[in-house]
C-alpha cells in the first residue's frame, strides 16, 4: 500500500511528472520564442506561474454548479497523474503492469479533457459553453484515428495489449518507427497529441482572441493552478507514451540514458514546431482533417501492418 502511494505522489507520479512537465513547458515556450527571434522566459518560469496562481484569490461563479466547478480541476489533475503512473511505470521498467493496461491508459488520457469540459459547463459562462462544445467535437474527432493507430501497433507487436510487452517486442525486433506503417502511424499520433494538448492548430477550444480562453475562462487562482499543473503533466505523459509505442521505450544503462531523454525532448520539439508553423483552424476543418485524412492514413497504417511492412 505504501509503495503505491509513493508511486502515485512522488515517483513517477505527481511530483516527478509535475517537475518534468514544467521543464518541458519551459522548453516549449523557449523554442517558441527562439522560432520568433525572441529571448524567451527564464528556466523557473513554470514554477513562478504555478506558485503565483496558487496564492491568488479564487473566484467561484455565482450562477452554475459551484461544487462541480471546484471538483473538475482536481479530477483533471487526478486523471493526468494516474495516467502518468500507468505510462511511466512500464516505461522506466519499474513494474511490468497488467494485461490490457494500454486500454486503461486510453481511457485515463481522456479524463483531463473531460474534466475541463465538466468544469466549463458547470461555470455557467456562455463562452465556456462554446469552448466545451468545441472540445467535445474535438474529442470525437481525434479519438478514432488514435485508436486505429493503436490497433496497428497491436497488430505489429503480435497482438499484445500490454505496454511492457510492446516495449519488449520493440527492443527485440527494432523500433516501430523504422517501418513504413510506423512512420505513418507516428504522423497521425503526432496530430492527435496536438489536439489532446489543446495546442495550435487545434486550440479552438481555448481561442484567446475569439472566446477569451474558452473552457478555462472562469478558472482563477488555485483552480487554474491545478489546471495548469494537469497541462504540464499531460505535456510529459503523451510524448512519453509515444516514445513507448514508437521509439522502443527507455533504457537507463550508461550512455543510453541521454538517448532516452533525447527521445522525449525530440517529440516535444516536433509538437512545438507544428504549433509554431500553423494557424488555428476552425472546428469543422479540424473534424474534416481528422475524420477523412487522418483516418485514411491510420487505415493505411493498419493495412501495411497486416502485410508486415
Amino acid at each position, binding site marked *: 500500500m505504501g509503495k503505491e502511494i509513493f508511486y502515485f505522489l512522488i515517483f513517477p507520479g505527481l511530483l516527478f511528472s509535475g517537475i518534468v512537465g514544467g521543464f518541458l513547458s519551459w522548453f516549449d515556450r523557449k523554442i517558441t520564442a527562439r522560432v520568433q527571434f*525572441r529571448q524567451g522566459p527564464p528556466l523557473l518560469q513554470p514554477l513562478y506561474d504555478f*506558485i503565483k496562481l496558487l496564492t*491568488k484569490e479564487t473566484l467561484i461563479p455565482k450562477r452554475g454548479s459551484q461544487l462541480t466547478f471546484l471538483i473538475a480541476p482536481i479530477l483533471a489533475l487526478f486523471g493526468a497523474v494516474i495516467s502518468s503512473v500507468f505510462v511511466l511505470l512500464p516505461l522506466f521498467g519499474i513494474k511490468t503492469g497488467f494485461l490490457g493496461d494500454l486500454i486503461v491508459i486510453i481511457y485515463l488520457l481522456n479524463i483531463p479533457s473531460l474534466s475541463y469540459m465538466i468544469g466549463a459547463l458547470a461555470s455557467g459562462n456562455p463562452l465556456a459553453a462554446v469552448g466545451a462544445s468545441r472540445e467535445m467535437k474535438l474529442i470525437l474527432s481525434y479519438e478514432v484515428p488514435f485508436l486505429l493507430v493503436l490497433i496497428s501497433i497491436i497488430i505489429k507487436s503480435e497482438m499484445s495489449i500490454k505496454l511492457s510487452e510492446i516495449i519488449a517486442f520493440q527492443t527485440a525486433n527494432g523500433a516501430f518507427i523504422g517501418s513504413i506503417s510506423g512512420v505513418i502511424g507516428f504522423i497521425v499520433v503526432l496530430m492527435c497529441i496536438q489536439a489532446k494538448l489543446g495546442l495550435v492548430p487545434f486550440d479552438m477550444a481555448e481561442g484567446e*482572441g475569439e472566446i477569451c480562453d474558452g473552457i478555462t*475562462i472562469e*478558472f482563477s487562482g488555485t483552480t487554474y493552478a491545478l489546471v495548469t499543473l494537469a497541462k504540464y503533466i499531460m505535456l510529459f505523459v503523451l510524448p512519453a507514451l509515444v516514445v513507448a509505442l514508437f521509439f522502443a521505450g527507455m533504457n537507463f544503462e550508461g550512455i543510453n540514458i541521454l538517448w532516452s531523454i533525447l527521445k522525449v525532448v525530440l517529440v516535444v520539439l516536433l509538437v512545438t514546431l507544428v504549433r509554431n508553423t500553423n494557424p488555428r483552424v476552425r472546428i469543422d476543418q479540424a473534424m474534416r482533417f481528422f475524420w477523412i485524412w487522418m483516418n485514411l492514413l491510420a487505415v493505411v497504417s493498419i493495412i501495411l501492418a497486416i502485410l508486415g511492412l
Partner: protein
Amino acid sequence: MGFKEKCFKKSLWVFHMSAGSCNNCDIEILDCLTPKFDIERFGMKLVGSIRHADVLLVTGIVTRKLLPRIKEVYDQAPKPIVVIAIGACACTGGMFKDSYTFKGPLDTVIPVDAYVPGCPPKPEAMLAGVVKFLNKK
C-alpha cells in the same frame, strides 16, 4: 521580499482593456510582445480572460458607455491586481476632457497603481513604468 512576492513579480499576466481609445495605445501595447521588446523575458504574457490576469491595462478615456463595464471587469478580477493607466487619455482625459461622453479620468472610477503618459506612450515607456512600480512595491 518573500518568495510569494517574487513569484508575483516574475509572472505578471496582462489583460488589456480598451475604455474607448483610438487604438493607438493598443497597437503600442502589442509592440511590447514583438522580438525587439519581448516582455516574455520577464514572464509577462497577454491572457484572454480577466480571471487569469494580474495586471489590468486600461487605455482610452472612460466613456459613458464603458463606465459600468470597466467597474464590472475590475470586480471580476482576482485580487491582488495591478491597474495601469496607459496613455494621456486614461491618465487625464487629454484632448477629450471637455467631451460630453467623458466620464473619467480612470482614477476616479477604479484605484490606479501606475500611470504611463504619452500619446501614445512608447513601448519603452510602458516597460519603464511597470519596472518603476514593481521596484517601489
